[in-house]
């Protein structure tokens, strides 16, 4: 395939991207997809020049990102859809059609991504509907009974069995990507902290990497380690909260409240470092704002010792409880084949046996020097997703203990210059939920002209839809919690 190959966090010049005509572009991207690459972006490199788009494919085996450009006639923004053959591109094409008026010809399921009233393909969107006398349609949301984010779910059922679930999102669309272009430098970090409240560190890490790479800033090892430790804190905290949620959905009150108690210890440890239990304010361009010292390291280690001890006891109770296992096993299965086709990422993909972890496939920051282990489970059901989270907690704890004992010396912040002109950067970070991608391009004055964010939820919501097929509708909350996806991260 014809493309520009770069690594994670490696800056490149926009002029280096090969812009091909329509048929060459389609051929080249199809070739990449047939090699087993996964799409992480499909959008114009410059917001205002919509007839020139780029496609970003990642190759997990060689840790490389393939960027291919396509130039279309200004009055004919259409191309042959890849989605029939490679379902993973389906949602990216919908997004492109929605935002920039492209028409993917022969697209199997053109639907709105974030805007509810948009007309795609000349007719208003109709939900998929199952026909028949005994078919039962259940619509849930966008306002839910619990305090959760808004999203509309439409189930086509026959009795208790779900045949199709359609998920309609976009109620939280705030225009984060557009705000990234308009906002002042020092406010962007705050903005990236608010992309989705449960992945503060993950998104901020990706955003800071973008700016630092564009400005050729070197980060000290100590700052990189602090960042990674913070990221693992977030992973542990959210995995504990997710396991608690899964336990709560099967009614195991004692397990759910125990995980909740431990999560408090973990987020309080993060607060000892930076004053915020969610890690807000820790990241800054060029490094971090707060440092470890003997006092907080001692306190954090003693907190985590308690967590390590108690988590193993609770895990043992949960994963040996017959009642819970009956609920978890063989519920909401996404097998490896389907997971690969729809491009599942992160912990959901690893639970289906796909070996993908940005910390290992596209190493960045401290993970280049201190690798973590890749954990996968084959079954792809609720059990695998819950068990994987329990195993990842152990691995993250190991990483944190290892780092806390061998902190290197050095400054925690370096100076940041101005951004390189006409450059681009792709930054991939493994948040607790999965692969977070931030992509930015600058104009000839170094001002950001395109900023694109891909949260793992963007890929994984479709996985939830498929997990529900031939599953009882009463198991939906359990499946939903096992994926633990973000609405805000998807809606942006």
């Amino acid at each position, binding site marked *: 395939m014809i493309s520009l190959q770069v690594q994670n966090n490696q800056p490149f010049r926009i002029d280096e991207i090969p812009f091909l005509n329509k048929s060459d572009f389609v051929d080249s991207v199809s070739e990449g997809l047939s090699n087993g690459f996964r799409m992480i972006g499909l959008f114009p490199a410059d917001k205002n020049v919509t007839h020139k788009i780029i496609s970003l494919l990642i190759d997990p085996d060689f840790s490389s990102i393939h960027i291919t450009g396509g130039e279309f006639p200004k009055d004919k923004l259409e191309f042959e859809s890849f989605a029939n053959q490679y379902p993973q591109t389906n949602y990216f094409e919908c997004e492109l059609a929605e935002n920039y008026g492209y028409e993917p010809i022969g697209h199997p399921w053109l639907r709105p991504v974030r805007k509810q009233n948009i007309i795609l393909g000349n007719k208003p969107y109709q939900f998929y509907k199952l026909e028949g006398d005994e078919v039962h*349609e259940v619509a849930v949301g966008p306002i839910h009974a*619990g305090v959760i984010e808004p999203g509309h779910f439409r189930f086509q059922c026959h009795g*208790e069995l779900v045949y199709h679930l359609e998920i309609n999102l976009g109620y939280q669309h705030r225009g984060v990507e557009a705000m990234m272009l308009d906002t002042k430098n020092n406010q962007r970090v705050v903005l990236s902290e608010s992309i989705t409240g449960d992945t503060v560190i993950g998104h901020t890490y990706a955003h800071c990497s973008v700016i630092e790479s564009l400005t050729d800033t070197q980060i000290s090892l100590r700052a990189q380690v602090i960042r990674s430790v913070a990221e693992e804190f977030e992973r542990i905290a959210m995995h504990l909260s997710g396991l608690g949620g899964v336990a709560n959905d099967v009614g195991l009150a004692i397990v*759910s409240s125990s995980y909740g108690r431990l999560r408090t210890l973990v987020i309080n440890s993060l607060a000892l470092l930076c004053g915020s239990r969610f890690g807000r304010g820790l990241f800054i361009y060029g490094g971090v704002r707060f440092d470890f010292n003997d006092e907080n390291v001692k306190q954090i280690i003693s907190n985590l010792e308690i967590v390590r001890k108690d988590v193993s006891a609770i895990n043992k109770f949960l994963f040996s409880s017959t009642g819970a296992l009956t609920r978890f096993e063989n519920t909401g299965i996404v097998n490896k084949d389907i997971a690969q086709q729809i491009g599942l990422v992160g912990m959901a993909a690893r639970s289906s046996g796909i070996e993908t972890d940005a910390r290992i496939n596209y190493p960045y920051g401290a993970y280049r020097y201190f690798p973590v282990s890749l954990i996968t489970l084959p079954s792809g059901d609720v059990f695998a997703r819950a068990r994987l989270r329990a195993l990842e907690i152990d691995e993250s704890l190991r990483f944190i203990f290892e780092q806390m004992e061998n902190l290197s010396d050095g400054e925690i912040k370096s100076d940041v210059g101005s951004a390189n002109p006409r450059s681009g950067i792709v930054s991939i970070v493994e948040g607790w939920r999965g692969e977070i991608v931030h992509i930015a391009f600058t104009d000839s004055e170094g001002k950001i002209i395109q900023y694109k964010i891909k949260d793992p939820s963007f890929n994984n919501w479709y996985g939830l839809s498929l997990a529900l097929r031939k599953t009882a509708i009463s*198991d939906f*909350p359990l499946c939903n919690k096992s994926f633990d996806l973000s609405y805000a991260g998807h809606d942006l």
Partner: protein
Amino acid sequence: MIQGIISILIILLLAPMFAGLVNKLKAIFTGRIGAPTIQPYYDLKRLLRKETINADSSSFISAISPVINFVSVVIAAAMLPIGLARPVISFEGDIILFAYVLGLARFFQILAAMDIGSSFEGMGAARETTFAVFAEPIFFFTLGSIAFMSGLTSIYDIYHSIRLDNVTYIIFIIVCSTSAFILAVTECSRMPVDDPNTHLELTMIHEVMILDNSGIDLFLYQYSSYIKLFIYAILETSFFYPFGVKSYTVGIIIFVVVIAVLSITLAVVETITSRFKMKNIPQYLLFATAIGILNLLIYTFTK
């Protein structure tokens, strides 16, 4: 007669307290402080102040159903002896009336749920009906087996016929209290059949049927569900009266002790068990029916 009136008053006044007690214990077992034990009274009081709204699509069924539901449950409550006192309503064959007056309450609740026309409530009604089919035999094989053994058909007389003079009665108490417990859990939508604390409409059984009710209607539904839980708790206590002498005071003490033990048992069960898969619930209910049948077999073979 006075004791009978005291019984019904105890049931009406203390029923919400029992639900509050179970919730309080559950909170303590999971390391929380929990709402006050008398929280259900506050909830009921709040509902009385609220406006009652019915869906436009609903018919008169929705309007009359809460009242019928409440009255039926109160009539059932009036048939139960507390401390072995003769209840207000007691006659030969009242065991059948008891079962079906509760059945009537359920019938109207299901009708009202379908009447509103929401897809959630239809789903809840379908589930409730399915499980009711399996729950009914439990009642008749538990209480009905004692009726069969003693040849009596009034709840009051049946309980008086239980004697401690035979070893089979000890087995009988174990078997009956187990199957009555399962019956209580099912009828009152507690764990592991239904989760009373969930906010997830898609998994609910009983709660989902009253999602669209408000104000006085919801008050009646909630109050009758508290009474219903208490009724099943009382059914359970009655098996233990033979341990006491035939004195009203001792009967009341046994009643209090058994209720306390039962609330702890309910709270423990709700803390450490997980909910069943919806499709496995009928198996659980058939198990309770099976041990009820065992009761009859023991009686037949030891006679």
